[in-house]
């Protein structure tokens, strides 16, 4: 009785729902990732057809592309997160497996139960039948309220496989299929390399997501990335012996045998022509010519396992959508995209475009395109089916949007480790594995703490105590500094005569705009920032106070201390090279008797292109095959990577452009100051027989001292806050070598939305700099300012 009532209710609801869908005049639905209308790439063409069919069925809904900004050196979901933070969130969120946790945990996705409940039973079961059992926990999971909810529908399933370059395989006398197992992969790679040394046998992407390829190796070797130990409790486990085998294999390809040139691009035809194999999704848009590349399952590991990854476009409704009409439209959109009808359209389109060989064979059978199965090389269908069955969803546990950067961290360490390289050359495989194992164990601990938030309670208690002490000390220093500075300041200001006595409200009227702006945009944010450092700050859900936990997490986070080291490294360059360059230039320009103006203009030239442009230009110059590397190769250096990816050069590459562009403008103030030195001093010194060095030391330096000190304190403060140029040049890479604290704060705040954590970090950085700031204020209070005549 009860259940039939529920069905009745659901039917009535469904009826009203469909009725309103038809009468509702126009609903605008903002969707991210709509296909471009002129797309010619097969998957996109298929999506266009699906979209057109949706528009035909729901004429009342207008789809609008919601496109956000693309930040360089960040992963794709950052765009959506930033759109949400910026208040222009799309109504339909497009997620993937690794990022869904972030969206759910932060309360950004609305549960779908009300809509599912309202659907007819047939529709529901159809939707549920299309989700493979291993994918179900990805979308049916615990929410921020601790309850289980159905959050999203996966559409357009894709799984990984290996693409191979038909032409190169043929030229190298290899069979027209991808390698069966790892041994064959190595063998094929060697033969491709023998054919032509310019060939890159396997394309392995570099950067922070480099370990995406590694994930397949992990699974093929029988290892895992993260596992759920208890409901909603996740642990990283990529340090088992099997995992070492996977990392070892990667090492063999890249550094051990140097078969593979890691990194680079695969977008231009020239690059594709010399690429032998590459890992990619079937069912996803591909950047290369499908005619040129054949496709097959990923090679099996030593134990015969094939670790294929399943992923999908996961669509959910943004929780900030309040208009029920828009919510309903969003549901209709999601439901249609995840329906069998849409799937059939996609398969049909691909088959029509002659790409049947690249469609999942299960789907070919389901939609009756069996004649195309015979086009597949023998054995491929079985391998596909096996891969699908054993296919695993991309890690979807807590904060798994960071999983690749977490696994890349030990990967880069392993690739650059001299001990491993040495042991490999000498054939001591036991040592290779031991060293890798150690690196991985450390990395796993780090991941458990940073990504999965796992810190034993006892440790946490200890940390809170330590942090408490640190914060109290910080507070004390701030109070002392405040008192000290204000005393110094008022002492220095006494004695200056004031010309006119106050005239009632007038001075305040003049002061008002500045004071108001300073108060509202400097003091209020400072206060709020301070508060935030003690909160688990959330954009959508209510924030909670967490005491000193943010500070504790920062103080005991090795990444933070690493970033501090990077900051010191950065500051060292800026304060030596960067600070000295304009001073020396000004001095040289001051000394020379002729052509002063010509040189001044030449050195000023870089300043006319904007600061942004300077960094763009230098990135091109620093490129792997850019002019600088070309020049160094002429001289005989081996330059494999671009400067921004070379650990030893990355920091320098962030500094040089600034010096190059800043020298000319920076020297002007020193030139002006040098001009104010009375010439009689030099003449008198000359009579006394002073040399060049004497004059520099005894006349020039004392005259410039005030300016130098002021500028130096300013430069120190600036050196600790430089982030923009680094984001532009390296994005913090390689392997965190240039991830200075300001950049880390930026990433934490804007790409991971851990605002409280970021602010706590900023406070700690700020308190470390307090000494130099006091000095700066002290010096300033004793200065007077005049323009140079």
């Amino acid at each position: 009785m009860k259940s039939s009532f529920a069905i009745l209710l659901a039917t009535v609801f469904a009826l009203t729902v469909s009725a309103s869908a038809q009468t509702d005049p126009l609903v605008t639905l903002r969707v991210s990732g709509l296909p471009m209308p002129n797309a010619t790439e097969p998957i996109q063409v298929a999506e266009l057809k699906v979209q057109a069919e949706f528009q035909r069925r729901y004429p009342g809904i207008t789809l609008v592309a919601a496109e956000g900004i693309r930040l360089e050196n960040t992963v794709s979901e950052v765009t959506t997160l930033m759109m949400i933070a910026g208040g222009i969130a799309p109504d339909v969120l497009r997620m993937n497996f690794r990022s869904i946790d972030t969206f759910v945990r932060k309360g950004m996705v609305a549960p779908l139960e009300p809509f599912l409940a309202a659907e007819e039973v047939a529709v529901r079961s159809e939707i549920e039948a299309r989700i493979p059992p291993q994918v179900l926990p990805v979308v049916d999971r615990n929410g921020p309220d601790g309850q289980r909810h159905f959050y999203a529908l996966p559409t357009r399933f894709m799984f990984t496989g290996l693409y191979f370059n038909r032409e190169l395989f043929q030229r190298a006398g290899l069979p027209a299929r991808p390698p069966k197992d790892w041994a064959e992969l190595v063998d094929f790679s060697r033969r491709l390399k023998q054919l032509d040394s310019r060939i890159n046998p396997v394309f392995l992407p570099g950067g922070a997501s480099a370990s995406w390829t590694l994930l397949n190796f992990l699974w093929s070797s029988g290892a895992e990335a993260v596992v759920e130990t208890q409901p909603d409790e996740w642990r990283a486990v990529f340090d088992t012996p099997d995992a070492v085998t996977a990392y070892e294999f990667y090492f063999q390809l890249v550094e051990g045998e140097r078969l593979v040139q890691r990194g680079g691009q695969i977008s231009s035809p020239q690059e594709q022509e010399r690429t032998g194999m590459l890992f990619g999704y079937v069912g996803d848009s591909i950047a290369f010519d499908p005619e040129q590349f054949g496709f097959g399952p990923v090679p099996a590991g030593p134990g015969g396992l094939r670790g294929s990854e399943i992923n999908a476009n996961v669509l959910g409704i943004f929780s900030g959508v309040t208009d029920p009409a828009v919510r309903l439209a969003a549901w209709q959109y999601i439901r249609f995209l995840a329906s069998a009808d849409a799937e059939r359209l996609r398969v049909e389109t691909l088959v029509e475009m002659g790409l049947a060989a690249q469609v999942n064979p299960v789907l070919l059978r389901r939609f009756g395109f069996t004649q195309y199965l015979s086009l597949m090389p023998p054995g491929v269908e079985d391998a596909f089916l096996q891969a699908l069955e054993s296919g695993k969803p991309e890690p979807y546990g807590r904060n798994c949007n960071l999983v690749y950067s977490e696994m890349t961290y030990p990967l880069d360490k392993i690739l650059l480790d001299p001990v491993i390289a040495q042991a490999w050359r000498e054939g001591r495989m036991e040592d290779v594995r031991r060293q890798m194992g150690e690196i991985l164990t450390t990395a796993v601990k780090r991941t458990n703490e940073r990504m999965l938030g796992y810190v034993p309670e006892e440790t946490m208690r200890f940390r809170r105590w330590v942090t408490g002490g640190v914060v109290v000390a910080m507070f004390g220093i701030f109070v002392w500094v405040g008192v000290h500075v204000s005393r110094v300041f008022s002492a220095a200001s006494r004695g200056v005569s004031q010309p006119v006595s106050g005239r009632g409200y007038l001075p305040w009227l003049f002061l008002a705009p500045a004071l108001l702006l300073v108060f509202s945009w400097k003091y209020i944010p400072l206060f709020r920032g301070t508060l935030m450092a003690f909160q688990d700050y959330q954009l959508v859900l209510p924030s909670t106070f967490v005491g000193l936990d943010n500070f504790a997490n920062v103080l005991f986070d090795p990444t933070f201390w690493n970033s501090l080291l990077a900051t010191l490294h950065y500051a060292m360059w800026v304060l030596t090279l960067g600070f000295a360059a304009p001073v020396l230039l000004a001095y040289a320009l001051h000394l020379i008797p002729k052509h002063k103006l010509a040189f001044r203009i030449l050195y000023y030239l870089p300043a006319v292109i904007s600061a942004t442009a300077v960094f763009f230009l230098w990135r091109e110059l620093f490129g792997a095959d850019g002019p600088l590397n070309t020049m160094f190769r002429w001289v005989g250096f081996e330059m494999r990577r671009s400067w921004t990816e070379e650990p030893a050069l990355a920091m320098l590459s962030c500094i040089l452009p600034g010096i190059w562009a800043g020298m000319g403008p920076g020297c002007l103030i020193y030139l002006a100051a040098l001009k104010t030195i009375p010439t009689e001093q030099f003449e008198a010194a000359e009579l006394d027989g002073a040399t060049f060095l004497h004059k520099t030391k005894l006349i020039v330096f004392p005259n410039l001292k005030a300016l130098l000190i002021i500028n130096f304190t300013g430069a120190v403060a600036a050196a600790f806050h430089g982030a923009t140029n680094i984001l532009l040049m390296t994005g913090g890479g390689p392997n965190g070598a240039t991830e200075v604290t300001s950049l880390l704060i930026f990433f934490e705040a804007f790409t991971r939305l851990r605002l409280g954590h970021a602010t706590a970090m900023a406070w700690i950085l700020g308190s470390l700099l307090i000494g130099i700031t006091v000095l700066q204020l002290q010096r300033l209070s004793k200065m007077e300012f005049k323009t140079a005549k």
Partner: protein
Amino acid sequence: MFFSPISERSLRVRLLYGAIYVVLGLGAITMVVPFLIMLTGSVEQKSDAGGLQIFPAYLVEEGALWERYAETRYHGLGDLLRMAWSEPSASFRDTRRFLVPEDPSRDDAMIALWEEFREKVTLEEKLFCVGWLRPNTRMPAFANRLFQTWLLQKYGALDEVNEALGTAFDRITRIQAPRVRIDGSPLPRTVLVQDFVEFSASLPSDRKFLFDAGGYYRTKVLPLLVGSRIQDYNARFGTEYRSFQDVPFPELAPVAGAEPWHYFVSRLLRTDFIELTEPGRARLATTALSREEFIRTLAQPGDLAVRTADTIFGTWAAAQGLVDARIPQLALDRQAFAKEKAFWRWELAALNYRYVWDEISGHGGAIRNTVILIVLSIGGALLVNPLAAYALSRFKMRATYQILLFCLATIAFPAEVTLIPVFLQLKELSLLNTFGALVLPGIANGFSIFLLKGFFDSLPRELYEAAEIDGASEWTTFWNITMTLSKPILAVIALDAFVSAYGMFFFALILAPDPKIWTIMVYVYQLRQGVASPVVYASLILTAIPTLIVFVTCQKIILRGLVVPSEK
């Protein structure tokens, strides 16, 4: 003078001067060379152009221009080049050797025959392929721009184009011509495709080339199917060809070599280039398959006929008694190239710049937004801070130094702590995506106020007294005396405001994610991520022009307005 005229003549000082000049000279070279590399790079057409070139060769040399011509004409795709010229060994690296014909009279004869054919036989538009399009979006293309302009002319404005195409492009440069191929499926029948065909028909024939199924068969398919040696083919099919170039590609399946012909036609060739023969139509009727499926699966060699320009031409020429005639595309290209060298030189050099200009100006708001932002920034900086500094410098208040400290202390605030709350505060005040977000938080600057106050203190008191006697209001005094006397320093402040507003993109992106108020620099940043370096170089040079103009005109004022601190 640092050195007296007498000591200037001493060897030591001369050596010192010499050393300084050498160092300065070397430094100057490093300042200039990147500019030259950038200028040269900005007129390149290759997506992987790089190296140390300091001058673009094709501007003066014919061979280099021909290379560029061939590469851009065939979209930088070697397959297309080899297909059109039917030259299996051709590649963009060595197109130079095809510039001069081996036998010019043969060229002329072939062209004459081809022109006769074109006069007598009309070819369907789908048989043509528009040249100078890039299949990848990382480089601008000459014909793509023509297509965009053509669309704008047909429909009037971007909004109408969007309406007609059912799209929502925010700028015209986003529209790409559809990618047309010789294999796979025919193009979907969208409005965009129909427009593209119409556009293609409007082009003169030397802006297009023809799909040459035979050329593709000989240069791409046969080597893949039977191996790269012609001997393999001869051995298999009992023929005696000297190279793949000699293998004919007839309209109907040939007797010798029917197998590879059929494989190519039935599996790869676009189905709208295929006509079913009489038996073919009969067989299709017996199955339940669509025409496309039938061709791809069950069709026999005898069922299919290829109807591309080369087979139509071949059949026509055979009727005139000429066996195995080929489209003289290479000869036609040489002829067209000889006529239009100056045109291409200019077009290719301007290509990237045009693209960047379209990208910036085509999105109307960018320039307007930049101007608004600059005006607001300069206006704010020149009013708020001097006013406050004036009040602090001129009036005796008990709180003067407390106020000064209140302002100056802000330079000690950790910027990262305030950054996030500023962002949230802007969000709460609904100021995100407005100019307010870009300007308000930065206008009042404690350090500027401090600096200006110090400077105002040094102005002669007598002028103020005179003004007071004249009964001038405070505003007049502020404006006519203080501000007038401080012009150089204000100019420097204004210049700083200009530079930071014009160059701002990082915060602009975060504080204004909505493209409605994006400035030029934000667009350039976005543009940069999707294009190859030559376009980036062009965008850098274009965006440097305003700054260059401002700096050149303000040169002298800058030096006068610099404030040098000294100890009291």
